[in-house]
């Protein structure tokens, strides 16, 4: 049923994140989505160079930082509307959550189809696929990070700009 939002408009805005324009939010979501795959790809590339292992790790962590920051912003923006922790969601929140889950499902389907197609092309070209720690951990980390975060990110992506307080 309908519920009251628990944000007091009369107090100063506790979080500027809620009032970020959609264009900026979409940029943050894009950074969150491509940040980790890029960092993982770069890590794989750097492993074959003669660079110091600690330096490689430091570069990887620095590259990972924007992803972590933008994922946290996505969670903050969704502010309990995805996991239901906000308690009382009104009808617009519920509709938005449904749209966010539906879009997450579509994005996940596209990623899975693309990954399967790329693997198929790779194998059909006479290559062999080795499933060791070097491939297992990036994939597992991707699943652990993105599957739970995807609905929040999609909500951050789809919601229109908030009306100015009057």
């Amino acid at each position, binding site marked *: 049923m309908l519920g009251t*939002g628990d944000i007091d*408009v009369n107090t100063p805005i506790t979080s500027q994140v809620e009032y970020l324009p959609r264009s900026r939010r979409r940029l943050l979501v894009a950074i969150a989505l491509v940040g980790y795959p890029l960092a993982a790809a770069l890590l794989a590339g750097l492993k074959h160079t003669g660079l110091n292992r600690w330096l490689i790790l430091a570069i990887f962590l620095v590259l990972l930082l924007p992803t972590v920051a933008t994922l946290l912003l996505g969670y903050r923006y969704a502010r309990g509307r995805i996991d239901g922790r906000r308690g009382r969601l009104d009808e617009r929140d519920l509709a938005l959550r449904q749209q966010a889950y539906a879009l997450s499902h579509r994005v996940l389907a596209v990623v899975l189809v693309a990954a399967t197609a790329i693997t198929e092309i790779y194998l059909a070209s006479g290559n062999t696929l080795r499933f060791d720690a070097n491939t297992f951990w990036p994939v597992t980390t991707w699943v652990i990070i993105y599957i739970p975060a995807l609905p929040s990110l999609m909500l951050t992506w789809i919601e229109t700009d908030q*009306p100015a307080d009057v």
Partner: protein
Amino acid sequence: MSDDQRRVHNRLAVLRTERGLSRKQLADKLGINYQTIGYIERGDYNPSLELALTIAQLFRLPVEAIFSLKPMTPLSEEIFGEPPAGA
């Protein structure tokens, strides 16, 4: 509001201002999030039938006086049957 959703026009902002209510106060009376009021007023969200009827009940007006599929004409024009002077 999704692109394929038909826009529902409304007079919510006019009525709310007329009654001296803030979005927060109106939202509290309706039991919804104050931001939802802003989205409805801006035409970015079409309320459910239940919410539209609750709003109509709150303002003691027929639902069609608040929500319409056609753009709303000024209330004065509807009452007096003529466009306001200078319009």
